[in-house]
């Protein structure tokens, strides 16, 4: 009995709770994508399959417009590649926590690595919960909510489009606000966040709307690494000076 209760607690605390904000955000956005997909002339089955095969919000929303315009497949695939290339950095960043995972776990986990699941896991892993199975379970739940949202959207067509009265469209921005602020632990983090955010918005304003996130991240993380290693060197030098004197 006790064990059962513990497992339930475990599931609620370790898996369901971190997934809830993502679910709240994915259902309405998946829904909107479903509506747009069918309205763009993509078949219901293909619209749903895209949420299973690609599972990338912004790329899928862009693709519906591209399919509607009749853009050639090569351009659609290339644009998708560029838009989703930022996940390269997220995958690299999380890899430092996956030392004990086997190949199948890494392959399964990475299939569902999105901006949102990355944000959740970067927090969880840093807090010490690095087990593979809970992490993968969170991802599966998140993708499931994305697919369910899509299916509901394809069924309703353009009957209901407005999720705004419930402010569900603010679930994901609010989650990013929380996850960003919770990860700011010292002054270096503040500089990195300011640099990343400002460069991203500046590049966006300059018309670089597909590369802004990845470029801003590279500059921000480089600044952080320089600050980190130089402050370490300083303290090392101070230490050796103290030891020498």
């Amino acid at each position, binding site marked *: 009995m006790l064990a059962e209760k513990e497992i339930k607690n475990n599931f609620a605390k370790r898996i369901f709770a971190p997934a809830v904000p993502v679910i709240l955000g994915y259902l309405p956005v998946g829904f909107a994508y479903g509506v747009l997909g069918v309205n763009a002339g993509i078949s219901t089955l293909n619209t749903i399959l895209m949420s299973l095969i690609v599972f990338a919000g912004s790329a899928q929303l862009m693709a519906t417009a591209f399919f509607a315009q009749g853009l050639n497949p090569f351009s659609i695939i290339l644009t998708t590649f560029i838009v989703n290339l930022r996940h*390269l950095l997220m995958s690299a960043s999380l890899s430092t926590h996956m030392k004990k995972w086997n190949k199948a776990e890494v392959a399964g986990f990475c299939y569902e690595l999105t*901006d949102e699941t990355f944000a959740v896991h970067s927090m969880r892993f840093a807090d010490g919960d690095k087990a593979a199975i809970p992490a993968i379970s969170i991802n599966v739940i998140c993708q499931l909510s994305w697919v369910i949202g899509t299916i509901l959207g394809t069924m309703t067509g353009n009957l209901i489009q407005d999720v705004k009265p419930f402010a569900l469209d603010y679930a994901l921005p609010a989650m990013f*606000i929380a996850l960003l602020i919770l990860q700011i632990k010292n002054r270096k983090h503040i500089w990195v966040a300011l640099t990343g955010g400002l460069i991203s918005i500046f590049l966006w304003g300059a018309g670089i709307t597909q590369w802004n996130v990845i470029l801003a991240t590279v500059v921000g993380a480089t600044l952080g690494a320089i600050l980190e290693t130089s402050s370490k060197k300083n303290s090392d030098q101070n230490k050796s000076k103290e030891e020498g004197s």
Partner: protein
Amino acid sequence: MTDQQVLLTMIGMGLVTYIPRLLPAWFLRGKTLHPFIEAWLNYVPVAVLAALLLPSLLVADGQFNLQWSNLYLWAALPAGLVAWKTRSMFATILVGMALVAIIRLIL
């Protein structure tokens, strides 16, 4: 495009999405990295979250919007304060969504 061509395009989209998601974790996991690279990777979350978040707050309908009408931006300030004070993701989301919903109701 026929349904089959759309499906093939989507499979291509899926591949070019999955490969960058997979390869870094696949090859870097378990490797001992240079301390600078390791520090760099540890700063990626903060940098990328900020790089994703700021445009989503400042840009509305494809344009910069710093006016009062940009609810996303102004609701972010109290929501951010709640995150800072409570260290709770749920409280932050609740306050953010409630504010946006209430202001929309009033306006």
